[in-house]
């Protein structure tokens, strides 16, 4: 009891003084809201150190496309791939719904609405880039080079994000003003014109090219080379082959960049080689290493259902056969039997026995798996598609655990092979010899016979399919050359399986619908893309 009294007395005294202090001194200081475990946004945009952090933040925001979002992991980054004519959406799943044009058509369907993830994430990337670019002029830098690099990287991000948004959603709105509490509810009410969009893309990329170095010692950052490449892509979209050629040549002729000698190296390991132009970075178990994804799982079949075959990295890792190579793509690769891209380098065509204990009679480890015919009766066909359909291994983690569905490894976004093919396309009419040389550089590297006839659009289309399938560029490419409708109509899915997209496709589907929820926030007059109900 005594103790309590004592305690009470002490408390009483402190409290009394405290109360007195409270009334006398100002409450304002006491009621200050403080950040106790967070960094303030004000810090980010008011110092060189803050801006350095803010630029790194852009890379992470971009990476979220691959790892975070409202759809389960399998559908995150592969929706553009799923909407190309090179895929078969076999096992039911989000990606196959997109591939079959079940999703992405009706604005109200669950999957279509969820493409708002792309919209929101790229606009977030744009706003944070805007903030960095706007702040850079008011911050003191230790040296001009640092400022140029930071602003250059931010401008690359802004261009990359707007260019991607434009190619997906068409009716986009561009701004270079960072969002503030004061302007957050302003409604644009109308889309931006193509002149505005491309004006900004070009000026950002020109600035970035002028500001960035050819290489970086922090693999994964934007460089002068990746900015040139992006500029070439923008130019060819604008139907300016001469400008595209200049920028493609700039990269091709730079001594730091060359095609790696074999297709087996292109997607092996951490992708840190002379052909890589822009690579999204992951690292297992590292702070900032990012989360795992299920892309490889979607792209490979369930070969391990077959007796005598178990999960292995050599066979491609674990798969579900949600989004696999279709007949059209496989036939393109079959045209030249020596083409080694589908020999386990970019794509696996043959799965091999590897389970000693369960081998079927007469088979040895290393023998190709007996394949049910993809042209047989339904049951046999489905077994082929489910268990042994060739699959793309561009997202495989070579040092991963083959029994795990999820993997984590660097993701190739832009590489020199595409620059070559852009150059081949750009020189097609003006310099056929150069054009053929670029195309054949890609073919001979893959051990395919060099082409002898002059390059035409069909040759570009076919070579791009073989070389770049599943890297995310195909949908934009067929849209750019005006063949989206035709290609989907003729080739999506397989003749005998899951070709629903062929009957569902309509010309207006080359533009994704702007998510309804976003449209409502853009003002009553903001236009939905043509062909979709308002």
């Amino acid at each position: 009891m005594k103790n309590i009294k004592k305690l009470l007395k002490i408390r009483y005294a402190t409290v009394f003084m405290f109360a007195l202090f409270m009334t006398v001194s100002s409450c304002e200081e006491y009621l200050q809201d403080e950040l106790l475990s967070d960094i303030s946004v004000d810090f980010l945009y008011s110092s060189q150190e803050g801006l350095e952090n803010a630029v790194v933040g852009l890379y992470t925001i971009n990476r979220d496309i691959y790892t975070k979002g409202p759809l389960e992991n399998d559908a995150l980054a592969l929706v553009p791939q799923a909407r190309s004519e090179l895929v078969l959406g076999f096992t039911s799943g989000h990606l196959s719904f997109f591939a079959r044009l079940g999703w992405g058509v009706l604005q109200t369907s669950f999957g279509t609405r969820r493409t708002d993830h792309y919209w929101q994430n790229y606009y977030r990337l744009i706003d944070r880039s805007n903030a960095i670019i706007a702040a850079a002029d008011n911050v003191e830098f230790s040296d001009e080079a640092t400022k140029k690099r930071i602003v250059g990287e931010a401008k690359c991000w802004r261009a990359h994000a707007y260019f991607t948004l434009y190619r997906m959603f068409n009716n986009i709105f561009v701004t270079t003003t960072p969002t503030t509490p004061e302007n957050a509810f302003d409604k644009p009410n109308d889309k931006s014109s193509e002149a505005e969009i491309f004006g900004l893309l070009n000026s950002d990329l020109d600035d970035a090219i002028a500001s960035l170095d050819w290489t970086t010692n922090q693999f994964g950052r934007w460089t002068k080379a990746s900015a040139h490449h992006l500029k070439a892509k923008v130019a060819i979209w604008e139907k300016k082959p001469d400008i595209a050629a200049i920028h493609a040549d700039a990269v091709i002729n730079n001594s730091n960049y060359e095609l790696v000698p074999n297709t087996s190296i292109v997607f092996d390991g951490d992708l840190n080689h002379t052909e890589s132009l822009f690579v999204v970075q992951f690292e297992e178990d590292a702070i900032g290493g990012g989360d795992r994804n299920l892309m490889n799982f979607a792209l490979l079949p369930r070969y391990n259902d077959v007796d005598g075959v178990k999960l292995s990295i050599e066979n491609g890792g674990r798969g579900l056969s949600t989004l696999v190579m279709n007949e059209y793509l496989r036939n393109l690769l079959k045209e030249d039997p020596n083409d080694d891209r589908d020999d386990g380098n970019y794509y696996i065509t043959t799965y091999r026995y590897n389970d000693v204990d369960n081998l079927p009679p007469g088979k040895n480890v290393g023998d190709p798996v007996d394949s049910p015919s993809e042209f047989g009766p339904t049951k046999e066909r489905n077994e082929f598609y489910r268990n042994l359909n060739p699959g793309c291994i561009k997202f495989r983690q070579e040092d991963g655990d083959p029994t795990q569905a999820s993997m984590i490894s660097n993701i190739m976004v832009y590489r020199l092979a595409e620059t070559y093919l852009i150059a081949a396309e750009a020189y097609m009419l003006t310099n056929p010899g150069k054009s053929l040389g670029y195309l054949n550089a890609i073919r001979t590297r893959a051990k395919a016979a060099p082409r002898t006839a002059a390059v035409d659009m069909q040759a570009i289309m076919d070579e791009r399919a073989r070389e770049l399938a599943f890297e995310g560029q195909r949908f934009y490419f067929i849209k750019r050359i005006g063949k989206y409708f035709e290609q989907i109509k003729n080739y999506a899915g397989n003749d005998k399986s899951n070709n629903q997209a062929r009957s569902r496709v309509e010309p207006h589907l080359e533009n994704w619908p702007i998510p309804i929820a976003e449209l409502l926030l853009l003002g009553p007059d903001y236009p939905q893309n043509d062909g979709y109900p308002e």
Partner: protein
Amino acid sequence: MKVKQHYQKMKVVFSLLFLFLSITVMAQSQKTVTGTVLSAADNMPLPGATVIEKGTTNGTSTDFDGNFSLTVNSGATTLIVSYIGYVTQELAISSAPMTVLLKVDENVLDEVVVVGYGSIKKSDVVGSVASVDVEEAVAIPTTNVSEMLRGRAAGVQVNLADARPGGSSNIIIRGKASLDAGNDPLIIVDGIPYDSINDVAPEDITSIEILKDASSQAIYGSRASNGVILITTKRGKEGKINVNYHGYTTVQTLTRNFEIYDGAEFAQLRREAQRTGNNNVYLDDDVIFEPLELESIQTGNYTDWEDIVLRDALLTSHSLNVSGGGENTKVFSSISYFTQDGLIPSSGFDRGTFRTNIDQKITDKFSVQANINFQTSNQDRESNNIDFINISPLAKAFDDNGDLLQLPFGPTTTRFNPLWNIRESVNEIKTRLTDINLVGNYQITSALSYKLNTFLRHRNADQGIYRTRLHSSGDGDVNGLATLGTKNYREQLIENIINYKPKINEDHGLDFTFVHAINERRTEETEITKSGFANDALSFNGDATAVVGEPTRDVEERKLVSFMGRVRYNLLDKYLFTLTARADGSTVFAENNKWGYFPAAAFAWKMHEESFLKDSQVINQMKFRLSYGDTGNEGIDPRQSLGVAGALPYVFGGVSTGGFAGIERLPNPNLKWETTRALNVGLDFGVIKNRLTGTLEYYKTNTTDLLFDRDLSGTSGYTVTRFNIGEVENRGFEVSLNAKIIRNEDFRWTVGVNWSTNSNEILSLDGTLDQDGNPIDFVNDGLFIGESIDIIRTQIFDGIWQEGDDIANSAQPDAMPGEIRVVNITDEDPEVPNIGQEDLIIIDQNPDWYGSINTTFEYKGFELFADVYIDHGSTRFNPYQGESNSGAGLQGNANGIKVDYYTPENPSNQFPRPNVTADPFLRVLGVADASYVRLRTLSLGYSFSSDVLTRLGLRSLNVYATGTNLITSTDYKSYSPETNPGSFPDTKGLTVGIKIGI
């Protein structure tokens, strides 16, 4: 083992407890007094009346026949006899058997009621205050105190949030006033704000009051806009030591009102779905089933997941309290132990609590109180989801030896056995709570007093999750995955309270209260995930080799400074006025908007004191009440007026690099208080000798400047910003009635009813107008002006398309027979009928009314209590009937609630045809009437008569059996209408218990 430790702890605690109780009993020469206590009105015996020797703590209570026998000091002269509801009498001791006639106290409303910063006579209550019958409330066996309030007071709605052991419920008083800033009422226990109502042990509660109108709430102002629940715990009384024990045990079982497909039915469902997807031609079983599924179909060995996953659960509670005291020191001390198994293996909850309330008088002017509450609890949660409904029955959960199989669908499949994961994981949360509340009272003059109230709370929770190397997320090269989290919560409160009651004269009573309060709350959270354990032996306590993801640390602090003043004025004991004003400053608001000012006024008129009613034979009580005032809400997280950058680290070439950016939330530098203005009109009455008492109330509350998480367009790069917008109105009517229908010697029957309505309406949002000048709704957020906050926006189910229907010319021209038909309300272009946004209707989810009826029968020592709870007209979305992921899609891949689906041979007009893709309008089937009527409590108890008690040497002995949720009538398909089928199921319980008083 754990239990043992607990008991050992208890032992230690007990020995300490008795040290506190140093009361001496003196032996003197004695005599015995006997007598009978009767009701003066009808000469009926009054059992349980208290008989005390005046000036001592010596006393007894009457038996069932009203008889008492008390041994008193030979010098004793006076007895005090009291009984609730009767006027207390003092009378001289006579040697002959005494007959004591007690008069009914006509003023039954004059129980003392706890209101903010003090208590007053019930008849003097001016605001809207509902008292809960604690006896009835604690009849529910749970640690979830919120559930005890369900149906106990009008205007109080309780929604089950988490039925797992140690789970919680949400309490909403008079409807939802706030969109985002929380609708939880403020919980005050013995004058101290509690952040969780479940932190008070039910056995310690002596009274619960609920403050519903602005005038009563204003005293708690800034956190009271959603109502206040005042809980008072038991305290020691002057008198001899009382020891009470209460123990019970409950068996919980599951009830459900739906069936799921068994194996054969599920196989047929898949065949039908595949057939529909294959142009009406059945596919071969070996095409659509996996090898293991085929085996299951052929052998008929299916898995009933619910049966293997769920088990009956047992719940046990012991509590013991000791109270007593002398003139200067009074102590109440209790310990209790509660343990509950969950229906799902590995889930469970146990808790030990200890409370001591001490009152110490130091001098005539100075007294102190110390209230100490200590709790330790352990909650075991099941790992992963508990989705035993959707998992296919074509599976093999156990191998031929009866051991669990890891992959119940075959070795090449990926889906794990849920029981496997439950076995291969632990998830436990250990919580320790320490509350210290010290109060000093100083009676400066007879009219002026000062009170210092100090409070310190520490809640420390440690969570450990471990997934072994056999668990689906700890296997492979993960080698065991653990998450360790700690959450420390600290709350401090200091209040300076001055009370001034000047004596003027009989006709004028004045009472001033001033309060200055400072409150600080701080939460510190740390979490780390690690992997790569050498073995599973040490669970999450082992050494790991790798850290997974980023360890997180989050520190949050909020402070509140308040000044409050209250004046109560009583004129002629007929007209009562209360005026309250307060100013609150909160850290969570923007720089220039920290302070909010909240005035309130209330008036009550005791009509029965007026001459025209004073002599009425019918009306004994009649009081009219009116109040109007403001309260504030600050229930948002701090930091929302500041720009917070999220950590976004990245790796370049494998090397970690720090990165940051603002992420989801845009700061709002103009954030301010949300204010609720409430009007309350009430009438309290008692008629026919107070046999029927009751309260009628009407209220209207308008909440403005709602703290709302407003959606930003994606083009802004942000998702939300906290914003003050709009206005929400709640209106409602409440009735509480209590009737003593029969009251005679052997038999008593009372009935209580309470009934409430609430209608909730959004009056305005951000004020922007569309082209036609109409205010714009927030469609994305589901907020529509003129509608309730809780709505479902849906098309209307109109049956199933049948063969022969004119589908081509309908609004669903692409539909096939067997698909869902919805009502085409209107079309923008009548030429092109279609189903679009214009065909959506809005349904209010809230009940039209809810209430409860309870009744008590007493016959001799028996008491039967029944309580029926009714929710009428509420609507909910049941994902198990309207979402393809939850098995409602009839796609044959997820199991679900069994329905009589459409087939071409057996066309249904209720449920669609199975198909490989879900019906586009499937969601309309999920919109379901969630009204229900439930017998929540049925309890039969017996109190032993005084003869038996004397023989046993006990003061009281009571045994009872209670059934909880015995009968439920509802159309909502679930284990319980308050929870969806996939969440932790709510149960039916059977309890037996015993109460002993010494």
